[in-house]
C-alpha cells in the first residue's frame, strides 16, 4: 500500500501534480494521503483540498464505470482523520492555533528543571521564540524540526494512530508498505518534516521493518520572491522566509543528510533531489490564503518520482538527481523527465490523451450534450444514438449531468490551469503553451498541436471534426458500463485514435 506525506506549501503542490497524473491514469490503484502543514489556511492548501474533494467525487463516479483498463481517476484516495474530521483533506499540524515556539518547547517551565532556560537562547532568537507559528515555520527549519519532533508524543492521536495501524497491516503482507515524503528543503515545514517523520515511522515499524520503504522528493529552491513584493519592514515580514536564504537552508539540509548517510542513520531508501537552475519569481506571502503559487515543473518531476517509487520502490536507492539535457539553456522536454521505470512514451501519451479528453469535453461535447436539439434528434449524433439513446439511456439525467459537470469543473478549474501555469516558464517544452488559455480551456483549433513546439501555421478551426469522427468510429465493444462512465471511456478511446492519426504521423 502506498502512502504520500506532503509537507508544507511545496508538498501540497506536488500532491496537486500527483493527483493530475492519477486522474490521467498513471497513478497506483490506491493512495493514502497525509498533509502536514501548520499553515492550514494557505492558499495552496485550499486549492489542493478543493482538488482532492473534486478528485474523490470523480473517482466515485468514473473509476469503475470507464472500464477497459483506461485507468482514468482509478487511484482510490484514502484520507486520514485529522482533528476529529474524517471528511476531506485536512492538514495535520504539530502546533496549536496561535501557539508560539516558547509554549511549544515549554521554555518558561525550563527554570524548574535541571536544564537552563538560557540553553534555548543558543538555538533560537527571542523573535523566533515569540513567533506565531500558525502560518508555518516561515523558512526556519530549526523551528520546524523542534515542532515536528513532537510527533512521537502524538502517536496515539489521529492521524498517526490510524497511519501506524495501517502501516503495520501493510508490513504483515509480502508487498510491504511504501511511504513517500515530499516537500521543499529550503523552506520551513518541508525541510523540518522529512527526518523526524521518517525516523518516527521507522521506529514504529517494529515487525518486518525491512518491508517499509521510504522515499523522499526533496525540492531544492525553484522559486524566489519577486524583489518588489518583499520590501516590508513589519515584524511578520522580518520573520518571514527570505529567498536569499534558500540556498543556505538547502545546503544545511544536504549537509545534515550527508551526515546521516555517513553514519548510516539515513531513514530513507531513496532521495530524489529536484530543483531548477533558474528559480521562478513569485509574489511574496508570509502565509495564509495569499500564499498561492503557480504550479511549477519541479513539482511535476517530484510527482513522477513518487509514481516511480510506488511503481517499483526498490528500483532506485540512495540519492538521485537529474539534470536537463545538453545545451546552452536548461529546458524540460519529455525526454528530460527523469523516469527510470515508467515508459516515457506511455506517460506522454497518457497525459496527452487526458488533455484531449478534457479539451473535447469542455470545448465541444458538453455543449453538444446540452444542445436543445439532441433530445429531439439524437440520431444526428451517431455515437450518442448508438451508445445511449437507442438503448433508452440519456446523458441528460441529473446523475449523469452532475458527473459531467464535475468533469468539466475539474478540467476547467484545475487540470488545464495547472498545465497552463506550468508552461508559463519558457523552459518547459512539454505541451504547446499557445493551445492553453488562462480560462482553463484548450483551444480546439490546436487540438492536433497540443505538444510542444507550437506550429502556429497549422491552427485548424476544423480540428474538432476529426476528433468527433474518431468518437463515431470507436468500435462498439470499447467503452464503459454505461452512463457518464461510458461517455468518458468513449472520449478516451477517441483520443487514442486521434493521437494515432494526428500525432504519430507527424512524428510528434
Amino acid at each position, binding site marked *: 500500500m502506498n502512502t504520500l506525506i506532503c509537507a508544507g506549501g511545496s508538498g501540497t503542490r506536488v500532491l496537486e501534480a500527483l493527483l493530475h497524473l492519477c486522474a490521467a491514469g498513471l497513478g497506483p490503484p490506491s493512495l493514502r494521503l497525509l498533509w502536514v502543514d501548520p499553515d492550514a489556511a494557505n492558499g495552496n492548501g485550499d486549492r489542493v483540498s478543493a482538488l482532492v474533494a473534486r478528485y474523490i467525487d470523480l473517482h466515485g463516479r468514473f473509476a469503475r464505470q470507464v472500464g477497459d483498463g483506461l485507468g482514468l481517476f482509478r487511484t482510490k484516495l484514502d484520507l486520514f482523520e485529522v482533528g476529529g474530521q474524517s471528511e476531506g483533506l485536512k492538514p495535520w499540524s504539530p502546533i496549536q492555533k496561535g501557539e508560539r515556539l516558547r509554549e511549544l518547547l515549554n521554555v518558561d517551565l525550563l527554570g524548574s528543571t535541571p536544564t537552563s532556560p538560557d540553553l534555548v537562547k543558543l538555538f533560537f532568537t527571542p523573535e523566533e521564540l515569540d513567533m506565531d507559528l500558525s502560518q508555518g515555520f516561515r523558512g526556519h527549519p530549526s523551528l520546524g524540526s523542534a515542532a515536528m519532533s513532537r510527533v512521537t508524543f502524538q502517536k496515539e492521536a489521529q492521524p498517526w494512530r490510524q497511519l501506524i495501524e495501517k502501516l503495520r497491516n501493510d508490513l504483515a503482507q509480502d508487498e510491504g508498505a511504501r511511504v513517500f515524503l515530499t516537500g521543499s528543503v529550503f523552506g520551513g515545514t518541508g525541510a523540518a518534516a522529512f527526518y523526524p517523520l521518517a525516523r518516527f515511522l521507522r521506529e514504529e515499524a517494529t515487525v518486518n521493518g525491512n518491508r517499509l520503504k521510504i522515499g523522499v522528493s526533496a525540492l531544492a529552491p525553484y522559486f524566489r520572491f519577486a524583489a518588489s513584493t518583499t520590501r516590508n519592514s513589519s515584524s511578520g515580514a522580518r520573520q518571514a522566509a527570505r529567498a536569499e536564504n534558500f540556498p543556505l537552508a538547502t545546503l544545511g539540509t544536504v549537509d545534515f543528510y550527508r551526515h546521516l548517510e555517513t553514519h548510516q542513520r539515513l531513514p530513507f531508501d531513496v532521495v530524489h533531489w529536484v530543483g531548477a537552475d533558474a528559480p521562478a519569481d513569485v509574489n511574496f506571502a508570509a502565509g495564509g490564503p495569499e500564499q498561492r503559487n503557480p504550479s511549477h515543473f519541479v513539482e511535476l518531476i517530484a510527482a513522477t518520482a513518487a509514481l516511480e517509487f510506488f511503481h517499483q520502490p526498490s528500483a532506485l536507492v540512495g540519492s538521485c538527481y537529474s539534470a536537463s539535457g545538453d545545451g546552452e539553456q536548461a529546458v524540460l522536454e519529455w525526454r528530460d523527465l527523469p523516469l527510470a521505470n515508467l515508459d516515457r512514451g506511455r506517460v506522454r501519451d497518457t497525459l496527452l490523451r487526458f488533455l484531449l479528453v478534457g479539451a473535447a469535453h469542455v470545448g*465541444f461535447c458538453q455543449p*453538444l450534450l446540452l*444542445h436543445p436539439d439532441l433530445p429531439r434528434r439524437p440520431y444526428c449524433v451517431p455515437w450518442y444514438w448508438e451508445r445511449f439513446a437507442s438503448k433508452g439511456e440519456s446523458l441528460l439525467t441529473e446523475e449523469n449531468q452532475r458527473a459531467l459537470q464535475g468533469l468539466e469543473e475539474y478540467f476547467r478549474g484545475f487540470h488545464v490551469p495547472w498545465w497552463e501555469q506550468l508552461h508559463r516558464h519558457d523552459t518547459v517544452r512539454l505541451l504547446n503553451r499557445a493551445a492553453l488559455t488562462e480560462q482553463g480551456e484548450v483551444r480546439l483549433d490546436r487540438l492536433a498541436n497540443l505538444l510542444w513546439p507550437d506550429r502556429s501555421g497549422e491552427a485548424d478551426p476544423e480540428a474538432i*471534426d476529426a476528433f468527433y*469522427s474518431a468518437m*463515431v468510429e470507436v468500435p462498439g465493444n470499447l467503452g464503459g458500463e454505461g452512463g457518464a462512465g461510458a461517455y468518458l471511456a468513449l472520449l478516451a478511446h477517441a483520443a487514442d485514435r486521434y493521437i494515432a492519426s494526428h500525432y504519430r504521423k507527424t512524428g510528434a
Partner: protein
Amino acid sequence: MSNLLDFFRNIPPFPGMNLVDWQAFRGEIWAWLIGLCLITAVAIVGLFVWHSRKVKIRVPQDPFLPFRPLRWLWLAAVPAVLVAIVYLARFLALFPLVSPSPAAGAVGTALVAGFATYALAQLGIWIPGITPAKFRYHPRWLWWLFQRKGA
C-alpha cells in the same frame, strides 16, 4: 390517369399504331431511361461523396444542421425531364398521325425515371463507406421513420 402507363404496354396503346414501330420506340426509350438513370445516379453518388466530405463539424450546432449533400438527390429530376423530352420527340416523330396526346405516357415514363434514379442513388449512398460515419444517420430518414413506427 390510366394513360400514364401507356409506355409499359407491350401492344400499341392506340389504334393505327404499328406493332413493330411501337416495340422499337419502347426499346429506344428504355435505353434512354436506363442509361440516364444509371449515369445520373452515379453522378449523384459521386457528388454526394465529394460534398459530404467537405461538410465539417466545428461547433455543437453543426450535427443538427440540414445535411446539404442530400440535396444532390434532387438531380434525380434531370433524367425524368430528359426522358420525357425524348419520349415526346420520338413519339411525335414515329407516330405523327396518332391523335391522342403522348403527354400522359411521357409523364409516366418521367416518373419512373425519376424514381428509379432516386432509388439507385439512395441505395448507392447507403453503401458502407459512401457516407462519412459521423453523418451515418442523416441519409437514412426512411429507415429512421421505419424505426420510429416499429418502436
